[in-house]
C-alpha cells in the first residue's frame, strides 16, 4: 500500500506553457525516506508543491494516504533551504507556530499550552537546541536556525516531512551534523520523508530510495534503492559500497548534464 502515489503527473505553471515536470510516476511507502536528486531547475521543488497540495497537477493524479490531493494537506511538514523563521518570534514560538494553525492543536492550544510548550522544548532539546527557546532567530547560527526550522516542520507530528534542500546553505561540517540529527529523529519514530537535494552523498546517506530526475521538463530517470544497513553511522560514507552508490548516481547526473 503506497502512501504517496504519482500517476503520470505533469505540471505546467502557465496553462499551455512548458511543463516543469512531465509524466512522473512514483510510489512511496509510509515511513519511507526518499531523496530526489537532479540537476538544478529540474522541477524538484515542483514535486514538493504537488505533494503538499500547493499546486494542482496539469495532468495525472497525485494521491496521498489513498486520497487524491485536492488542496493543502495538514499532515505535511515543510522546511526549505532558508530557515524562514519569523524574526519577531523567539525560537520556541517559531517552533510552535504550526500548533496555532493545525487542528486539533489549534483548538486545544489554550488548554494544553503547558504540555505543548514542554513538547516543543523537548523537540528543541532533541536537536541540540536545549535552552535556546527564548533566543530570537538572528541570535542563532545558520545551522541552529535550520535545526529550529526542522523542529517547526515536525512539531505537529506530520506523517509526511518535505525538505527542499534544507542543508544546502550550510558548511560541510554543520551539514553532516544535521544529517545525523535528521537520521536520529527519523530512526526514533519513522515518518515519511521526501528530501529534495543535489548533494548525492546526502541522498545516499539518508534515504531508502533515491530518484534521479532529468533536466527540465523533469522526468524520473532512475529509481535506486539504497541497501545500506541501518542505523547508518557517519563512517558509512567512507565505505566502498557507499562510494559505489554515489558513483552510480553521479554517472546518471553526468549523462543528463551532457545530453
Amino acid at each position: 500500500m503506497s502512501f504517496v502515489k504519482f500517476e503520470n503527473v505533469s505540471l505546467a505553471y502557465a496553462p499551455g506553457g512548458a511543463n516543469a515536470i512531465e509524466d512522473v510516476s512514483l510510489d512511496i511507502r509510509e515511513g519511507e525516506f526518499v531523496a530526489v536528486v537532479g540537476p538544478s531547475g529540474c522541477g524538484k521543488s515542483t514535486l514538493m508543491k504537488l505533494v503538499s497540495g500547493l499546486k494542482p497537477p496539469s495532468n495525472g493524479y497525485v494521491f496521498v494516504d489513498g486520497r487524491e490531493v485536492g488542496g493543502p494537506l495538514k499532515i505535511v511538514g515543510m522546511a526549505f533551504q532558508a530557515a524562514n523563521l519569523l524574526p519577531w518570534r523567539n525560537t520556541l514560538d517559531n517552533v510552535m507556530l504550526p500548533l496555532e494553525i493545525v487542528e486539533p492543536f489549534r483548538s486545544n492550544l489554550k488548554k494544553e499550552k503547558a504540555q505543548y510548550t514542554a513538547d516543543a522544548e523537548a523537540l528543541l532539546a532533541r536537536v541540540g537546541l536545549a535552552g535556546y527557546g527564548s533566543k530570537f532567530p538572528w541570535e542563532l547560527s545558520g545551522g541552529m536556525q535550520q535545526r529550529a526550522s526542522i523542529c517547526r516542520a515536525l512539531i505537529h507530528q506530520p506523517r509526511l516531512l518535505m525538505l527542499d534542500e534544507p542543508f544546502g546553505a550550510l558548511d560541510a561540517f554543520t551539514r553532516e551534523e544535521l544529517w545525523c540529527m535528521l537520521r536520529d529523529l527519523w530512526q526514533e519514530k519513522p515518518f515519511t520523508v521526501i528530501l529534495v537535494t543535489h548533494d548525492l552523498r546526502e541522498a545516499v546517506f539518508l534515504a531508502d530510495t533515491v530518484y534521479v530526475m532529468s533536466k527540465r521538463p523533469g522526468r524520473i530517470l532512475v529509481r535506486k534503492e539504497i541497501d545500506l544497513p541501518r542505523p547508518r553511522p557517519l563512517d558509512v560514507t567512507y565505505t566502498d559500497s557507499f562510494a559505489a552508490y554515489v558513483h552510480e548516481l553521479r554517472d546518471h547526473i553526468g549523462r543528463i548534464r551532457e545530453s
Partner: protein
Amino acid sequence: MAIKTSTAIKAAPWLLTVAIFLVWEVICSGLKIPDYLMPAPSAIWASGLEYAGPIMMHALQTLWTTLAGFALAVVVGMLLGLAVGASPLVYKACYPLLVGFNSIPKVAFVPVLVVWFGIGTIPAILTAFLISFFPVVVNVATGLATLEPELEDVLRSLGARRWQILVKVGIPRSLPFFFASLKVAITLAFVGSVISETVASNLGIGYLMMSASSSMNMPLVFAGLIVIGVMGVVMYELFALAERRLTGWAHRNPNAPG
C-alpha cells in the same frame, strides 16, 4: 573610546542646532540685516515670548487638526494598504488612482474643501489626511507584497487560511514598514494642516503666520515656523520611539538611522 563616541552621537544634533542659530545670529547682527527681512534668532525669541499666549493657542489648534488628520490617515491608510497588499486585483485596480491622486498638489484641493466644508478646522484636518495617507498605504502594501513565498508556503501547507497568513505573518512583517511610514506621514500631516490654515482659516499657526507677514512682523512669522518645526520633531521622535519599542526585531543594527 566607545563611550565617547556614543555621547558625541547623542550630543551632535543639539550642538549642530545651537551652532546654526549662533551663525545665524552673528550674520544677522554682523551685517545689520533689518528684522523685517531676516530676523535674528534673538529677535525671534523675543517675539515668541511676547506673543506666547496667541502662539500657544494657534499651535494647539494646528496640533490637534494635524493629529486628527494623521489618525484618519493611519486608519484609512492601513486598511487600504492591507487590501492593496493582500490582493493583486485590488492592487492593480487602485494603484494608478492612488498615484494619480497623490500627484495632485494638495494646496490646489483646499478651495474645493472650503466650498464643501467652509473655512477652518475641517479643511485643515482633511488636507492633513489627504497629504499623509499615501505613504502609509504604500508602505503597508509593500510590507505585505514582499512577503517571502516560502514563508507563505510553510503556512499554506499547514492548511492556513488567507486571514491566518495575514494575521500570523503578513501584518507583523509589515509593521516595520508601517512605522517607517508613520514617521513620514506625521511630518506630512503638519504640511497639510498648515497649508490649509494659510489658505482658509482664522485659526492655527498657518493663519498666525499669514496675518503676521501681512503686517511685516517677520520675527513672529519665524517664531511660527520654528514652533511648527519643533512640533514636527517631537511627534517624529515619539513615533520613532514607538517603532523601536514595538519592532525592535527589525532594528538590530545599532548604526542604522533610527
